[in-house]
């Protein structure tokens, strides 16, 4: 069976892709974890497997090249879904990060390369600087928008007045999940509970479209590929 393998930065990114498949790709069912990674996600349709494999960040990509090897020879298609991060930060921003990742891929000497040219998507939308949490903020449903737009904005303003540091985008979204689901979201594996809760996110938001289109394109390439 053909496999489409998405290499992502961490477990949270893998969980996000898993939630997106549950919401927008009804032909796929979860099958636990793939053979190639204990922390990964395995989904299957009638014609192909999809694996989402965390590789530990963009700086570690070159060490994870074995994740792009078609070890079993069944037909592998690989794509990267990473954070764009901010321009000015080391190798950050859409242009620099894309260049860095392409260069890293070009140094791989694979024994059993994937059947496609490895495609790259950068959070939040392959166009702006940012990270997964920026996309998460974009798809907060209307009924909870005030938690960010009002409560969190006032919290940030208060911190600024009293000389505090601006919190990260990650903590903003973590606190959003806790605000809706309660403190139990911090229990073991809790932060993943938030990502998988369909009430917390608007999966039909136009902001998801670039990622949805990117994933759909990878699946189509694999489907028609030899």
């Amino acid at each position: 069976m053909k496999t489409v393998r998405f290499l992502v930065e961490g477990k949270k990114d893998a969980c996000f892709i898993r939630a997106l498949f549950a919401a927008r790709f009804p032909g796929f069912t979860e099958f636990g974890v793939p053979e190639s990674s204990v922390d990964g996600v395995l989904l299957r349709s009638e014609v192909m497997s999809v694996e989402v494999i965390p590789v530990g960040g963009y700086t570690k990509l070159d060490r994870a090249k074995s994740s792009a090897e078609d070890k079993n020879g069944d037909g592998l298609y690989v794509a990267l879904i990473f954070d764009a991060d901010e321009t000015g930060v080391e190798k950050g921003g859409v242009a620099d990060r894309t260049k860095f990742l392409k260069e890293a891929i070009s140094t791989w000497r694979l024994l059993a390369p994937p059947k496609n040219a490895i495609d790259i998507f950068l959070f939040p939308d392959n166009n702006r600087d940012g990270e997964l949490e920026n996309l998460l903020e974009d798809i907060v449903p209307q009924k909870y928008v005030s938690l960010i737009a009002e409560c969190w904005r006032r919290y940030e303003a208060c911190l600024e007045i009293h000389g505090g540091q601006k919190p990260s985008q990650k903590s903003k979204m973590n606190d959003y999940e806790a605000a809706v689901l309660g403190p139990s979201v911090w229990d073991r594996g809790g932060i993943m509970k938030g990502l998988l809760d369909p009430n917390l996110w608007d999966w039909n938001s136009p902001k998801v479209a670039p990622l949805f289109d990117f994933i759909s394109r990878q699946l189509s390439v694999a489907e028609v590929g030899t």
Partner: protein
Amino acid sequence: MKRFLSSLNIVNFRGFKDFSCDSFRPITIIGGKNNSGKSTLLEAICFLSNRANGAIPGKLVWNRGERMKTRSLATLFYGAGDEGEITMHGIFSDKTTRGVSFECTHRSAIEFKLEDSPKDNINERQPFTYVQQFYTNRGENAVSCGAMMIAFIKDEYRCYPFDPQKTGSEYGKIDGRTTDDDWECVFYQSQRRNNISPVYSRLFKSGDEKKVLPYLQFVDSRILDIAYDGDMLLVGVGDGKMRLPINVMGDGVVKAAEILSILALCPGGGILCVDEIENGLHYSAMKELWKSIVCLARDRNIQLIVTTHNIEMLKAIGEETDCVDDGEFVYLNMVRRCGDKVVAFPYNHQELTHSLSMNLEVR
């Protein structure tokens, strides 16, 4: 390391239809699922390295626990067919090459052809043929191989100059050398079938036990000294008043003593192959054993080729091999793909430790 096997091609041998790998390093770890060819790869390296020793095909069959029968050598061929030719070619880091081809010319005869570099030397070494005859005498199995006679007597596996006038039992009376003498590559198996006592005997005769002791103390710091009583290794522990037979020590110490002794006797520039190194070891002993083996192997300029599919052993190897240069180490993940093709995927030290830390499956 000055010179090590860097590349290998194997055709028609055991489970390998056609296998190539050019990623070997002075410290090579091999992993993979059951039946992916890990042990066969070690056998092939042993075969190629010791190709001038006529005992080698029989020893490989014997080491797998098979009784020597007329058709036993067929199991060395891909698909157990004894058809065609087994060929192996190795390239060393200094660009010298080594090759051997092997075929059954009829049901009970095998022909070896050797090929070495530099090419000029080939003509000096005549291709030679070993004719194998099998018979049983007083319960002893024996194989005669043209230039030499190999006898299997109890656990011992001995090699004697061939004399067509002698019967199998008469060979047993000759003080022949063991087939482990002067081999360029030593193969330490996971399931011990051979008596290790001759190794200890040679270790003490040569005075090389002094090389082993400090490394054995890595594994168990209570060990004060070692001695040999003509039959087994004795280990001085505690206050030094008592010496215990090695066999009453833990499996980790026994295994360490065996591997380190073999390493100490291995010819410099040679190869030590260890199959399933983790067998019988508690995970806490793995780091110390590995550290000792690597240190002694580097001191003695010996290439280490080791198989394991134990994740704790791999982690221990990853941590304790931190000091080696990247070019010194490789982990090969053996995978049997569709079409019965075996591929070895290489990981350098950084890639292996990263993959282990990220829970990526490397076995």
